[in-house]
């Protein structure tokens, strides 16, 4: 069991590194959106500071959404998913590994870049740990929920728009909690409540989403 997880992880890494374009797409998008805002609204730090939580979170959300469509598509088209579904190993576990890998390539990379963009948007240093923590708890939820949508639309020729419509409403709680925590931190109020709610969502998504993703892929493959 441990071996298959490791082998799958190596496979995903190899695939990602051999097509670095796919890897960089969401990150470049995230960086572009965040860095265009100060140019558009002007360099006034007080304006930027109030907008920063919203800008960073919306950019992270859209960047994740952008990367979702391709998550299972190529594996579906070349028949790899059929072999996964037919394998004696639990599909839920394999999709979880795949989503974790997807998150490391998009969510975790955004978390690492976030302090830089936070400073660019004039966020005070004391708020940066809160930004990191909320992104660290929130982006896995984005990847996991998004994978459910990607699995359900995998058999469709152009599922991109449908995927966005399906998934965006589910992203809204994460967006509200993430930006709410940041606003509270900016005003010097406690953020524990927001963090606990985000943690709840993360745990819930981590435990339940793999089953939904696997069920969606089974349906997609049997079409």
């Amino acid at each position: 069991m441990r071996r298959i997880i490791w082998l799958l992880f190596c496979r995903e890494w190899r695939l990602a590194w051999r097509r670095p374009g796919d890897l960089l797409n969401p990150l470049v998008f995230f960086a572009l959106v965040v860095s265009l805002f100060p140019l558009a609204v002007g360099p006034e730090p007080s304006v930027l500071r109030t907008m920063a939580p919203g800008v960073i979170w919306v950019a992270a959300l859209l960047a994740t959404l952008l990367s979702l469509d391709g998550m299972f598509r190529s594996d579906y088209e070349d028949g790899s998913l059929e072999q996964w579904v037919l394998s004696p190993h639990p599909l839920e576990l394999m999709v979880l590994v795949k989503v974790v890998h997807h998150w490391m390539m998009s969510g975790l990379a955004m978390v690492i870049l976030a302090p830089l963009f936070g400073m660019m948007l004039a966020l005070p240093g004391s708020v940066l740990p809160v930004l990191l923590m909320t992104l660290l708890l929130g982006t896995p939820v984005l990847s996991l929920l998004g994978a459910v949508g990607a699995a359900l639309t995998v058999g469709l020729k152009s599922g991109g728009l449908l995927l966005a419509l399906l998934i965006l409403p589910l992203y809204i709680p994460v967006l509200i909690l993430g930006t709410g925590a940041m606003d509270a931190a900016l005003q010097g109020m406690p953020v524990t409540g927001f963090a606990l709610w985000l943690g709840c969502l993360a745990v819930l998504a981590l435990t339940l989403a793999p089953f939904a993703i696997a069920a969606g892929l089974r349906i997609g493959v049997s079409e």
Partner: protein
Amino acid sequence: MKPLPVELDELACERDQRELFASLSLTLKPGEVLQVAGPNGSGKTSLLRIMAGLLPASAGDMRYGGESVLRGSGRLAWRQQRLYIGHAPAVKGALTAEENLAWLCALSRPVDSDRIWEALAKVGLRGFEDVPCQNLSAGQKRRVALARLYLEHHPVWILDEPFTAIDKAGVAALEQHILAHAGEGGMVVLTTHHGLDHLPGVRCLDLEQAG
């Protein structure tokens, strides 16, 4: 483990409210090769996908050694017994032939790289072990997928159009390998438009007449 017979019992398949076949019953005994024939759209691939466990049957049952493999606990046991190679060969273009095979085999049981190289040599891909598969021709990609037949030990093979894009010598080698597998008591179900009449002991199921 000794191979057991595969029984189809009144199996039916419906796609988009169209009946492809119904009341399909047959027994595949160890050592038999079954060629599923019929015109395009007659349900050959659907039958193979039902047998593999990818598609639900609309009615009927399928048993391996007397135990249902479409429902209940037999489903999991069946996953260890059959090898399915579909239309899409499940070969990733960005990975090399060796990496592809290592992963595909690991899905059931990991094999070491010496055996993968051996198998690639047997399908005529010596020297292509570490070439990314996107640089291989369609026939060579198909050969990478078919190399699994030399690596895995499932008693039942379910092959959808295995001869597509393969040259004459490759087809002959594959036919011999299929016969050898049947000779050891294995079972093979395959669809192909290529005639297999010259091979001894190949049964033919014509879905047009059956349906």
